[in-house]
């Protein structure tokens, strides 16, 4: 097993292993410093940050669903300045590789956030959360509009030398088209998936179970859709992919790697088991060793397609 090297590179970003804490599921990282060795993770994607402090939505903010959960936190956050002054130094002290997840309501806000964070010591990369609430570009979110995505990525690209990783929403018809647009706009990598827009209703009160009415579905329930989307994007782009969606075990990590992810983010699993990280790392190492691989990259995108089927792997072909 010692022969296995878990290090991966996501474009300019070198990670000691492919496991990354997903944004919004790990606070600002510092909350977990007591239970998780932050320096042992490939990276930590911190909770989505706006320029200013944000209050977020009223509770109830989460509700459990079959093999998943809905959340509508509303991006409560301390704002970028307090993050840089208060959290970033702690993350550096813990030797965490920090990916900052940024959100704006305008293209300029994204660019401004990128500039501020470029000057802040200890930021490894920027993940662009382009599926936030209240971000309109031609009537839909940046994340659901190719133009919106292109505008945000290009603006951030111009504003920073840091690795730029747009995070794609799964709530679109053709996610691969968004991955291509991100690549063309100069992204260093893409991450996917964000949560699926969903809703649950309390049948006794007939009220939505979330104060915000709708929320994002995460957890094992979405994994098969997320794996499909990572696979589609792998066929469509050459830049690295950070895959995620419902990863709970090392087997799930491997499934995303084989589907085409260069790194794998882990979100909801942190809530179920904050001590999941060592188990994921050991399991991944054991899998690679068992199969005689020395590097993670050996299995990235290594799907073995049955020949006749190869012709049928268009997005249409699966639906009934």
């Amino acid at each position: 097993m010692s022969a296995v090297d878990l290090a991966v590179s996501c474009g300019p970003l070198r990670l000691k292993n492919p496991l990354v804490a997903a944004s919004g599921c790990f606070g600002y990282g510092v909350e977990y410093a007591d239970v998780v060795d932050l320096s042992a993770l490939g990276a930590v994607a911190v909770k989505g940050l706006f320029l200013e402090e944000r209050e977020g939505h009223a509770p109830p903010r989460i509700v459990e669903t079959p093999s998943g959960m809905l959340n509508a936190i509303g991006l409560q956050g301390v704002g970028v300045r307090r993050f840089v002054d208060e959290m970033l130094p702690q993350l550096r002290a813990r030797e965490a590789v920090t990916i900052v997840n940024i959100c704006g309501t305008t293209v300029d806000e994204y660019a401004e956030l990128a500039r501020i964070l470029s000057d802040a010591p200890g930021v490894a990369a920027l993940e662009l959360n382009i599926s936030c609430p209240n971000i309109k570009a031609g009537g839909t979110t940046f994340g659901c509009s190719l133009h919106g995505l292109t505008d945000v990525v290009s603006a951030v690209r111009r504003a920073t030398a840091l690795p730029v990783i747009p995070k794609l929403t799964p709530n679109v018809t053709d996610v691969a088209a968004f991955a291509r647009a991100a690549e063309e706009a100069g992204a260093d990598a893409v991450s996917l998936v964000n949560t699926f827009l969903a809703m649950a209703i309390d049948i006794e009160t007939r009220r939505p179970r979330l104060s915000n009415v709708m929320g994002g579905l995460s957890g094992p329930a979405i994994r098969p859709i997320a794996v499909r989307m990572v696979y589609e994007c792998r066929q469509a782009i050459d830049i690295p992919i950070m895959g995620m969606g419902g990863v709970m075990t090392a087997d799930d990590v491997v499934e995303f790697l084989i589907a085409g992810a260069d790194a794998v983010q882990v979100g909801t699993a942190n809530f179920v088991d904050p001590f999941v990280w060592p188990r994921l790392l050991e399991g991944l190492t054991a899998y690679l060793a068992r199969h005689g691989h020395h590097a993670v990259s050996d299995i990235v995108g290594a799907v073995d397609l049955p020949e006749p089927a190869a012709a049928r792997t268009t997005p249409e072909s699966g639906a009934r």
Partner: protein
Amino acid sequence: MPIDVDALVMSNDRLSATYNVLELAAPEVAAAARPGQFVMVKQNLAAAPLLRRPFSVFEVLRDERGDPVGLSILNKRIGIVTDALYALEPGQRLRCLGPLGRAFSLSSPPGEAWMVAGGVGLAPFATLAEALRAAQVPATLFYGGRSSEDLVYEDWFRQRGVRVRLTTEDGSRGESGLVTGPLEQALGTAATPPTIYACGPTPMMRAVAALAHEHGSPSEVSLEPVMGCGLGGCYSCVVRIRGGRLVRSCLHGPVFAGDRIDWDALAGAA
């Protein structure tokens, strides 16, 4: 620093059709737990439902030498997991992550400590009673429920020198009415304002906090919002405090000073 133990269920004492007490072999968690702290439990990491559930540390169980051997939780059935916890059998296991959250702050003698519990809101007070006793703080428990079945474990408190005043809404046990009745009455005649601790339904805690404020007593309440992680990671458990900020009750609570809570907002959220 919380730890996660796959704790053996040592016993399951079903007190009624809705209440039971589970004894869990989690010595390290028990040893570290302070009054008012909680644990996040889940039966099997792989099994449904997905998320853990928060439970107050009820008793810290000790061997004859007084060393912690485990902890118990007082469980009330209201849904999927609480039903499953009611059905657990000795020999099965329960994952137990903790201790978590902010504990009660101990009042010191000669001041008195009054605990006000509504139903399963009794849970955080067993450990508090032990601590008060060790600190030689005279303690009273005002304990209310809908009916007599909602009142459990009162002898446990009496045996530890706690004065107990019972109320039931249907009058089937103790004084009839709400627990705030006897509390208000007692506050009216109290020589010096006691420190008041409350846990129970939101309207009850709100009323208690208001009474305490009126009579110049400091109060602490233990809130029970839905919690997704218990570690500050998910921001699901926020409560609005006076001044408007939303804070995570798993980190800054579950215990808050009664005066700090924006009770209007909390009522709205429920």
